[in-house]
């Protein structure tokens, strides 16, 4: 290989890594450093601030006290556990809604598939915030859903959905549905339908063929979809803030409160770092699953 080619081939890899380094790793270290600081009534509201003077002295001031604090106040680990549970339940619910949608799309005539795909992506054309706001109008006691059900005679009292975990589940399922539908659809669409026919030909009922052939082959899509929903849902802030009640504990909301209401940057930074560590584990699993899927898909 000639030297120029070698340099350009390295450069191609270097650019994205440099991007990640600058825009991910460096901010992470800044946040990490803030989490080791103490609050102070100044701008920025923490101490010490590295400005090139007395650096060594300042490094000695850093401590893990904020992390110790997170373990001492039950609010934080409750918020973490509650977030993970809400995210996990929402992920399962999203899967249950998304799978039939993706299946229907993949089995639809190929001429209308692009339209169906567009319809799935269409909500992204409106602001996420506005769409979540719109759900308040639907879910509130005097909202559209209650009115509709009352007028149909299905219920007599208005529904108390808004400000409950149910509203959060609805919000997350609605908002993250495309992230689940698309990977499952792409897995199902690639699948050769004659595999299902072969399974039936060999004595499988249609239900049996689904569980023995279709579902296992769509599993990489299911796994990808679950992670794409679970990971952002854990740290979700807007949906619990707008649709959830005061009793709803989610780490994203806690973080926001620490940062903006309490103006405690160091503690909220510690919360963020721990959240990241919690999410790194499923991300690593996700990466592994992806690599395996690629291996199997060859």
């Amino acid at each position, binding site marked *: 290989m000639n030297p120029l080619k070698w340099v350009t081939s390295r450069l191609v890899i270097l650019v994205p890594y440099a991007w990640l380094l600058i825009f991910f790793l460096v901010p992470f270290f800044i946040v990490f450093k803030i989490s080791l600081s103490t609050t102070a009534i100044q701008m920025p509201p923490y101490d010490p601030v590295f400005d090139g003077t007395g650096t060594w002295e300042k490094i000695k001031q850093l401590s893990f006290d904020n992390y110790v604090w997170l373990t001492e106040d039950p609010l934080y680990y409750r918020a973490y556990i509650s977030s993970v549970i809400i995210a996990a339940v929402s992920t399962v619910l999203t899967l249950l809604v998304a799978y039939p949608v993706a299946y229907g799309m993949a089995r639809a005539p190929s001429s209308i598939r692009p339209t169906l795909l567009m319809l799935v992506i269409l909500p992204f054309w409106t602001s996420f915030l506005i769409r979540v706001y719109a759900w308040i109008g639907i879910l509130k006691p005097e909202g559209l859903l209650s009115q509709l059900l009352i007028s149909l005679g299905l219920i007599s009292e208005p529904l108390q959905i808004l400000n409950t975990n149910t509203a959060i589940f609805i919000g997350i399922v609605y908002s993250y549905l495309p992230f689940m539908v698309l990977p499952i659809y792409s897995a199902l669409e690639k699948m050769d339908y004659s595999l299902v026919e072969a399974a039936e030909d060999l*004595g499988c009922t249609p239900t049996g063929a689904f569980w023995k052939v279709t579902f296992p082959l769509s599993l990489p899509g299911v796994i990808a979809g679950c992670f794409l929903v679970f990971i952002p849902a854990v740290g979700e802030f807007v949906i619990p803030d707008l649709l959830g009640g005061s009793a709803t504990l989610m780490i994203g909301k806690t973080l926001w409160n620490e940062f903006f209401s309490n103006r405690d940057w160091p503690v909220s930074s510690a919360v963020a770092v721990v959240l990241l560590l919690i999410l790194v584990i499923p991300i690593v699993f996700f990466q592994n699953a992806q690599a395996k899927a690629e291996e199997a898909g060859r």
Partner: protein
Amino acid sequence: MKSLGNIRRSFAPWNDPSAKPYIAFENITKAFGSFIAVNDLTLHVFQREFFALLGASGCGKSTLLRMLAGFEQPTSGRILLDGQEMSGIPPYRRPVNMMFQSYALFPHMTVEKNIAFGLKQDGMAKSEIEDRVAQMLKLVKLEQFGKRKPHQLSGGQRQRVALARSIAKRPKVLLLDEPLGALDKKLREETQFELMDLQQELGLTFMVVTHDQEEAMTMADRIAIMDRGQVKQVATPAEVYEAPNSRFVADFIGSVTLFEGKVEKAEGNRIEIAGTDGFPIRAESAVAVTPGATVHYAIRPEKIRLTKARPADPSVNAAEGEIWDIAYLGDMTVFHVRLASGKVIKISQMNATREAEEPFGWDEQAWVSFPANAGIVLTS
């Protein structure tokens, strides 16, 4: 007609009026919207027969196979298998198995699991399944590959796994949809013979769909030639080649030259045709024709002689022409001879010796000749 029967073995239940068909398609019509894929088709296949459905793509042959497998429902008509009416029986309860054109091997399962799949559905005992899988792997010579996944196999190996999987359940009928279509020519030829041996060994009824006439001729006991949802002729390979029943079949199978003409004289089966190509044709007709009728005389390239001079025997049909094209294929040479009428005649000569006795060159004058019984008179 002399014995243009089955040259492979003495097996001809279709000539036995008392034999009961094993598979019966009766007045089957299948429409997809306004498109008629299969049109009022009746076809009988006998037990242990190796039966081929041959036709161009879109002729309805695959649809017919899929109706027998249960993937498509006939619009009208009925299918009987071993005397049992098949309509309403879903694919998973039919005693037939199919080998798919794409093989449809389950990519997430090993070769063994693929073969065992159908057996497990039947609730066969585990030890019995293991024995059967081992037996199948041996049959298709893949003993070493049981633990591999389909994507770790070559095309030919995958084809054999698909075959093993489809015969593992010992179906009453094995359906093969273009079974050799994805293999290269040499492997295809080898596999044709393997399939024939396997069919003999297992005593199963095979029904194969193919567009490759050589494949159908090699393997099948009988061939059904299909066109636009209908069967044009059902006969042994030798019959469809030597005694086609129509111009379509004559033209579809192998190479042929068709002469058109009016019947001039008819005495018993010996007739004389006033050909439109400038020379009279004496022929033997298997079907009764009346003078004045327009008929076609079909003749295969290898049954025509090419000579420099007119043959001495005045009873043979002969015409003079110019050598228009020569294609040397090694085992034989194909000549295109152009008559004065503009008609181009295809002639093939075996290259039985390394040097031709009478070598021909381009643009030379030559005589084509053939005896009366070399070709066949077609009225449709």
